[in-house]
């Protein structure tokens, strides 16, 4: 499978070409280069995945991991070394498919969405860079390579969020995203260092005999790595960057902040899963609790946001938390005995990437049409944008967990895994799932149903109350709708993929079977959520909605402000670190450290000034001192 190297090299070349020569390129050429590269990458990824799975299982009934490339990149001491290479395993093959598919869709979509934007070539260059780094991350042969690409992913996310670099909000958001994830990466790095020191290797599969002694510190290392993952995957309380990251272009949000990069944390935990399950099951449970809390928190916040991208952002946080929970509730490596969550998590990752990508691209299409992110500027769009409407609805149904759309299957597996772990966890996650259905349909109704903002404005204009004719919403061009349709199609059928055949916690084949009880319950709950949303929002904001808003004013306000988590972080960074630590240190340096040196210099100067008059140049004075000195010395010599 030597050709897999091309999967990495092609986007890198595309990045270099577009980055260096982009300025002299017409937009069309740049877009074409970027997109064609991605077509090739996608084809190669599918080919690699198919070839890999088609090769079949080995004697022990698992898909053998292959490493077509692995070379020493940077030696860290006599035994440790950072290697660079390509590792194809079931999950990395699956990730290749996810990333290349979504990325290709985004590339095509952006041809329309970003048309005529200043910096179009730069945009495609960054997309290529991101694709390169994300692919490098998933095919990493060792934890350090993963970290290397992890950082690259972070920086491409930074560059893309800050794409509109003249917008202050985008600048702040990109900075925030980078610094928050960087902060989390610090723990990741320390985790890696501990891991490397005690196991003597950075590879994912250390020697068993080493693990026997290193086992005691592994939980610490793995917990620290999880914190790194939590940063990238926006787990509470490190989630604050993700909603702000929506300042970037919408296709970027679809690619990076919905489908691929944010699941890197999940992928990391999945990668290290054998170690987690073998040596640190208690850390897995911590992950489960953190995930469950995040899922609930994000779902509540998503229910009251008015910016449609923010709703999607919180929904992403919540869904990723589902995947984390699924991994966290695993109690054994055997999918039949408590290891189901692993498969469920990966399955959900796969389906979520597709339908969340679709949602974001749909949202992009809407924003493209109405030139606003705010729900108040939307409403009644279904007749203006039929394709967007239908695909968006499909995605909403999928995320809400309605069969036969893909989300139902993966979420069902997660819920089953949760019930297997403990009933409270199952119930808790089911409620969050119902909330998912509610807020997604709230969003759906607010956008596509209710009173049309356009029509209201038009009426105002015709009555003369408004001086400019409102912009009529229109369906997006084919370059944008085709990716929507493709993703919608995948969303419809992905649920029927026998996912367990390819990926499971111990690598052996596992046949998915729907647990009827859990499935029924979750469908009912989802339907209830949808029904509630229908009542409240189908005809605009009904009286019931107003009443509820009135009664729950304070909690809604708190939820709208994301329970003031951003303010807490702001307080820590601005007030404590910036004003409380950094500024005093700078002052201390200038005035105390430097001041004491200056004082030394001043003292020397003063002392000089003090004895300078003695060098008066007056020979008489000199001679008086001279004679006095002679007498003194004589006296000393004489009396001693």
């Amino acid at each position, binding site marked *: 499978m030597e050709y897999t190297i091309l999967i990495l090299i092609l986007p890198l070349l595309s990045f270099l070409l577009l980055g260096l020569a982009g300025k002299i390129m017409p937009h069309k050429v740049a877009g074409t280069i970027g997109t064609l590269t991605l077509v090739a990458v996608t084809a190669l990824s599918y080919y690699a995945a198919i070839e890999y799975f088609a090769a079949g299982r080995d004697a022990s009934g698992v898909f053998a991991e292959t490493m077509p490339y692995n070379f020493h990149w940077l030696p860290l001491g006599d035994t440790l070394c950072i290697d660079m290479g390509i590792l194809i395993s079931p999950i990395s093959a699956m990730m290749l498919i996810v990333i290349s598919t979504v990325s290709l869709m985004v590339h095509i979509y952006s041809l329309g969405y970003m048309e005529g934007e200043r910096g179009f070539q730069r945009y495609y260059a960054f997309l290529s860079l991101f694709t390169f780094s994300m692919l490098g991350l998933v095919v990493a042969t060792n934890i350090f390579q993963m970290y290397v690409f992890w950082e690259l992913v972070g920086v491409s996310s930074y560059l893309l969020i800050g794409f509109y670099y003249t917008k202050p909000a985008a600048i702040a958001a990109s900075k925030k995203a980078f610094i928050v994830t960087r902060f989390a990466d610090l723990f990741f790095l320390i985790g890696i260092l501990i891991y490397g020191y005690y196991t003597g290797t950075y590879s994912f599969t250390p020697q068993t005999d080493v693990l026997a002694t290193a086992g005691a510190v592994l939980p610490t290392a793995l917990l620290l790595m999880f914190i790194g993952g939590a940063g990238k995957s926006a787990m509470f309380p490190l989630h604050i960057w993700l909603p702000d990251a929506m300042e970037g272009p919408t296709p970027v949000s679809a690619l990076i902040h919905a489908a691929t990069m944010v699941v890197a944390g999940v992928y990391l935990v999945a990668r290290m899963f054998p170690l987690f399950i073998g040596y640190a099951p208690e850390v897995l449970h911590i992950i489960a609790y953190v995930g469950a809390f995040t899922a609930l928190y994000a779902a509540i916040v998503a229910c009251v946001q008015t910016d449609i991208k923010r709703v999607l952002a919180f929904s992403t946080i919540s869904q990723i938390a589902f995947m984390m929970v699924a991994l966290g509730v695993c109690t054994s490596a055997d999918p039949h005995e408590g290891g189901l969550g692993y498969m469920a998590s990966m399955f959900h990752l796969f389906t979520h990437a597709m339908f969340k990508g679709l949602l974001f691209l749909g949202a992009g299409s809407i924003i493209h049409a109405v030139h606003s992110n705010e729900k108040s500027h939307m409403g009644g769009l279904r007749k203006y944008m039929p394709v967007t409407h239908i695909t968006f609805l499909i995605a909403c149904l999928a995320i809400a967990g309605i069969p036969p759309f893909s989300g139902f299957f993966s979420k069902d597996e997660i819920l089953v895994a949760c019930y297997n772990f403990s009933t409270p966890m199952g119930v808790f996650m089911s409620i969050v799932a119902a909330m998912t259905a509610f807020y997604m349909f709230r969003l759906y109704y607010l956008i596509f149903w209710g009173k049309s903002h356009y029509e209201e404005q038009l009426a105002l204009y015709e009555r003369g109350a408004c001086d400019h004719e409102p912009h009529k919403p229109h369906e997006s061009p084919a370059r944008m709708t085709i990716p929507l349709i493709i993703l919608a199609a995948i969303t419809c059928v992905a649920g029927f993929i026998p996912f367990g055949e390819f990926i499971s916690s111990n690598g052996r084949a596992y046949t998915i079977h729907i647990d009827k009880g859990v499935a029924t319950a979750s469908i009912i709950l989802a339907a209830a959520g949808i029904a509630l949303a229908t009542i409240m929002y189908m005809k605009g904001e009904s009286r019931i909605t107003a009443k509820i808003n009135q009664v729950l004013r304070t909690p809604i306000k708190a939820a709208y402000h994301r329970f003031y988590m951003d303010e807490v972080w702001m307080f820590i960074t601005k007030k404590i670190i910036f004003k409380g630590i950094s500024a005093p240190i700078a002052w201390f340096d200038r005035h105390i450290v430097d001041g004491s040196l200056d004082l030394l210099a001043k003292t020397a100067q003063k002392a000089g000034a003090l004895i300078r008059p003695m060098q008066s140049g007056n020979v*008489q*004075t000199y001679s*008086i001192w001279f*004679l*006095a000195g*002679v*007498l003194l010395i*004589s*006296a000393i010599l004489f009396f001693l």
Partner: protein
Amino acid sequence: MDINLIIFASLAFVMIVAALFAVTSSRIMRATTELLFVLFGTAGLYFMLHYTFLGAAQITVYAGGIVVMFIFVVLLIGKGSVDVTQTSLRRYLAGTAVALTGMVAAIYLINTTDFQAVNFTGDGVEMKELGMTLMGTGKYDFILPFEVMSVLLLACTVGAIMIARKK
């Protein structure tokens, strides 16, 4: 009482008084004249020691040459500018104290030191012997310092002309 002692005492008295006037007089011309007395007194001492040539040289070079130069410069510069103001009291006291202490110390040392002086013979120095010593090249002879002296005098003459020359 020895006549020599009387002569010495009167010479010493004149010299010390003249010296004191020389360094305290507020008028430069007077100070110069007092200096002349000191120099003559010194010549007298040389004669008492039977160093007649030395005494003669003292009178001609010092009293005759140097003092004339002093007078010359004083007159050249003019009376108005040769204004001998005394220094500040502090320095005056300091100078007095240091000079007095030094003098006391020196006299004390002279009194307590045994110079192993032999009896004064009163033999003068013959001019021939002096000439031989100055021009001789042997041990205890002074041809080289003599020549160096002459060069020094030449250099000083040239130097003095150079410095004082009007540009």
